[in-house]
């Protein structure tokens, strides 16, 4: 049982007009085997939270804390966070020319587990995980994210999650740009991994569509860099009908 604890997190970015505050005091606790949906309008700070958790250098933490089972995450480098068990499924994964998927996966697995995986077992694991995500075996020979369709990129993110076995995963708008079939395959993958490993999930989304496939235990509404409201599944249903106007008008 692990706990990812975010307390009074305040984050800014540098812009041409100077420093801009994005997160204004976020409190959030996620336990293993829980699914938290973060919803909110564009520009509310959802992705900033995701990238701050992963340690992207663009974001400056001005205050607050992030701990993973009591360990200070903010003190860790990007790779240390991943080795501690954090995983970010990105909305726009970048291309890495000349690096094949299979080379990349093996290198990442070796880094995460501290030793090279046993070859035969590993090949079986990769093949199995790819099959479950309906990915062609030839995928392994392609260069990372190069020429991937939107759906392939997202499947590739989930494939990594399946093989790297993190304790907590942040899914940053994994549903964007997916058709219904791809959305189902990706969602099944998330549910399967959670079922097998007790993964804690922070699901960031703009739409309620993905919540039909991945059932959240908690829903948090993000507005203007803060959590404006939280509740259970029913909150998502309400957002589906009412949208975010209510929060924006209130000027939280």
């Amino acid at each position, binding site marked *: 049982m692990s706990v990812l604890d975010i307390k009074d997190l305040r984050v800014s970015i540098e812009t041409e007009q100077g420093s801009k505050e994005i997160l204004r005091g976020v409190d959030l606790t996620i336990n293993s085997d829980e699914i938290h949906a973060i919803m909110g309008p564009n520009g509310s700070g959802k992705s900033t939270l995701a990238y701050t958790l*992963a*340690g*992207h*250098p663009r974001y400056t933490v001005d205050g607050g804390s992030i701990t993973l089972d009591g360990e200070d995450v903010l003190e860790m*480098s*990007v*790779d240390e*966070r*991943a*080795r501690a068990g954090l*995983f*970010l499924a*990105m909305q726009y*994964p*970048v*291309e*890495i*020319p*000349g*690096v094949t998927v299979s*080379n*990349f996966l093996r*290198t*990442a697995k070796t*880094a*995460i587990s501290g030793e090279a995986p046993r070859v035969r077992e590993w090949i079986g694991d990769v093949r199995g995980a790819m099959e479950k995500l309906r990915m062609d075996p030839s995928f392994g020979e392609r*260069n990372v994210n190069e020429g991937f369709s939107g759906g392939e990129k997202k499947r590739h993110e989930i494939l*990594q999650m399946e093989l*790297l076995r993190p304790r907590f995963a942040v899914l940053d708008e994994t549903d964007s740009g997916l058709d219904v079939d791809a959305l189902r395959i990706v969602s099944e993958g998330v549910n399967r991994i959670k079922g097998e490993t007790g993964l804690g999930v922070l699901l960031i989304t703009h739409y309620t569509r993905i919540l039909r496939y991945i059932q959240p235990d908690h829903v948090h509404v993000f507005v203007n860099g803060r959590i404006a409201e939280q509740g259970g599944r029913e909150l998502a249903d309400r957002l589906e009908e009412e949208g975010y106007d209510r929060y924006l008008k209130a000027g939280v």
Partner: protein
Amino acid sequence: MTATETTPAHLATEDRFVPIQTRSERPTSFDPADFGTPTGREVNWRLSDLKRLAPLLVDEETETGAEPAIEYGLAELEAAGLLVESTGHDAAPRGEVFRPEDVVSAIAWKRCENALHIRLPEGQVQEQPVIARLHGTGAERRANAHIVVEAMPGSVGTIVLHHSGSARYAQNLEIIVREGARLTLVSVQDWQDDAVHASAHQAVVGDGAYLKHMVVSFGGGVVRVNPSMRLAGHRAEGEMFGLSFSDSGQHIESQVFMFHEGVETRGDVLYKGALQGEGARSVWIGDVLIGQDATGTDSYEKNQNLVLTDGARADSIPNLEIKTGDIAGAGHASATGRFDDEQLFYLQSRGIEEEEARRLVVIGFLMEIVQKIGVPEIEERLAEAIEEELRRGAGLAPASKAGA
């Protein structure tokens, strides 16, 4: 032999300066005296390391003494039956397509009595790549060479020139790809770090023929390999690929020229360079010319450089000139930068340490070219050399944001 080209007026008349507008109009001559000594202001010497190239600018006898400055390991060519009797200045096909465009090349032409002549016989399919091993026997020793590689109609094959050791070496490479032939030519500069090498490659590709031309430079003090390719035939196809890795004190230069002359020709130019260490330097000047009769042409050229540390400098100048309105496509691009932060972030977010992430990015960047070589021995040697370079560079601080 006397020059077969008339000397352009502006070269003969000292006090007149005529700017050269079109790459194909660059003056040529077989007589070194016509070029004079470059001052460093000329378009084709402006970014060169003239100081270290100076020994190659002196027009004097070099084939003296018993021990050659360059040992030619030609056993593989001989075994494959690709070696033809050496050709003197007047013996065809020497000079069929080659015209020296600078003084070094003119000296190499003049001072090389017998050209090495490699020929793929008509219709012959040479399955195995054939490697000529050129080894320099001393950094102070000078050599001039003219080499002819001729792919006869319908032939298929891969020829590699592998350079090692050290020398001051001026070299002309004349490449003739006749009708329907498919040739891959790879020049590998695997020199010791005190070698000085200036080479002019000139290729002509005939009807329906194909040439894949590759320049791979990672060893040597100053390496200047300037290839040009004329897609002369109908539907001639040409690819020009380059890969360089410049370390501290290394100056690696390529002036690349792709000339679409024939109808429906297709050309692709891609040069990639990595640089690390104080004073590491690369120069790339890429000219693509689509002639006025070259309708239906498809052409693309790109140069990408990855600056790994501060103190390195990459010059990249792409030029594209189109003289017909009827083309299928033409484009050019140049990008020089430091590590892509987003690539590093992506890899690190998967647990990969920063140094390993950098290694993956550099190797990946260069592999795109390595994978095109198709000669296992050279690919392995290259992968090994890249790892070696990266080990050497591991202690150096990565390029800062402002540096690139």
